[in-house]
């Protein structure tokens, strides 16, 4: 069997499908990031809340962070239907990615909140601002901009973890590559292109984050 190692015709033929998959990967990343950014902030603020609640949230964050995302994806995929909740693969994926990364971003927000000088809290209290205004008017506007680069890094990590969703049948870029490979029994081209597509997007993104880091400084 003497077939060539790299077949350009085949590579170009499967490219549109792979790009379609990449689109789905990006959709999952964007939606997952939105969930992670919002929920992460909530988890971070809750950890500064009343003690019993803070402890429960802390435990949840630790549990999610020390167990695999893939298992959490399967967990939602298999367990939710038991409670009568049937969701599409993309929805399950966005929830799993969002919640998993929220536990990471909550740590980032927490570091940002901790870095706000004590004097700011004291001044806000002295001005007898209500609790909600202390957060939205004083603390968060100082804490959030500084953590943007760190959040950006997590978005990039999430982008690279979307292929885990092929396990529950999402046809993202890797799902498409797998499909093409299984159909034509040629795996070199689809997986190489898939890898290059990831590199093409995530490397410039990480350079951008590094530049941001230099501008705002890290915590």
């Amino acid at each position: 069997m003497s077939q060539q190692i790299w077949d350009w015709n085949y590579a170009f033929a499967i490219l549109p499908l792979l790009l379609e998959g990449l689109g789905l990967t990006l959709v999952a990343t964007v939606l997952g990031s939105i969930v992670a950014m919002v929920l992460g902030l909530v988890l971070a603020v809750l950890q500064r809340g009343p003690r019993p609640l803070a402890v429960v949230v802390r435990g949840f964050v630790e549990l999610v962070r020390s167990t695999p995302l893939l298992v959490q994806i399967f967990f939602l995929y298999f367990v939710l239907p038991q409670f009568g909740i049937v969701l599409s693969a993309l929805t399950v994926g966005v929830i799993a990615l969002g919640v998993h990364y929220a536990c990471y971003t909550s740590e980032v927000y927490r570091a940002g909140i901790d870095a706000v000088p004590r004097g700011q809290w004291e001044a806000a209290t002295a001005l007898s601002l209500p609790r909600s205004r202390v957060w939205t008017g004083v603390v968060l506007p100082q804490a959030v901009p500084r953590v943007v680069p760190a959040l950006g890094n997590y978005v990039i990590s999430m982008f690279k973890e979307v292929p885990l969703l092929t396990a529950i049948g999402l046809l993202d870029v890797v799902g498409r590559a797998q499909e093409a490979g299984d159909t034509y029994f040629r795996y070199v081209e689809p997986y190489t292109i898939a890898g290059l597509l990831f590199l093409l997007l995530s490397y410039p993104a990480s350079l951008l984050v590094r530049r941001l880091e230099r501008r705002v400084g890290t915590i």
Partner: protein
Amino acid sequence: MDNLATFLSVLAQGLPETVGATVGGIALTIVLSFAAGLALLSPSRPVRVISRIYVEGLRGTSEVVQLFWIFFALPVLVGFEIVPIWGGILVLGLNHGAYGAEIVRGAIQSVPRAQYEGALALSLSPAQRMFRVILPQAVVEMIPPFNNLFIQLLKSTSILSFVFISEITRQATQILVPRFNPQVLQIFLLLLLFYLVLSLVITAVMRFLERKAAARLGRGPSERARRAAVTGAV
């Protein structure tokens, strides 16, 4: 809960694969991290460029893609197939080694410059400077971030279920879930518990190593290292 014993024993059958892949992956990660991390600081430009390509190439592509590439594309290119568990260890090590290289580089660069100058003034050879002065101090700084990296690696072993390695995630999803479908909640909680315990073991070992490495330098764990361990920066 009467099936608990069955769940435990089926999951436990996957433990050798999970633990083997983790330990093997960690060993390869350490080797590649130091090799690539030191190469990133090499005075020779080609060496720096090659290690930079390795680091950015592996950090820039998805781990799942790397896994599939090694399992499905590489055999076509080189003409032989890899034993699954070794392929798994290879992917885990290559991927996490790229992240580890940055940890090694960062830790070496964080050693105060005066230490380097002092070693130079004592006319130590370049190798002596690195291995007797710089690295012992850098290693203490590396341990907390490596702890996080190794836990990431442990979690990554779950993706080996994609390539038919019977580690604990595959044991749960392929054997237990189809047979005990009404009890998926228990199955997955148990599976999560397995990972939680394994990650606690890694943390315990790394804390021990950190104390030993710090004691060798005659000091307690540094403030920076402690903070990194708490916030868990990746």
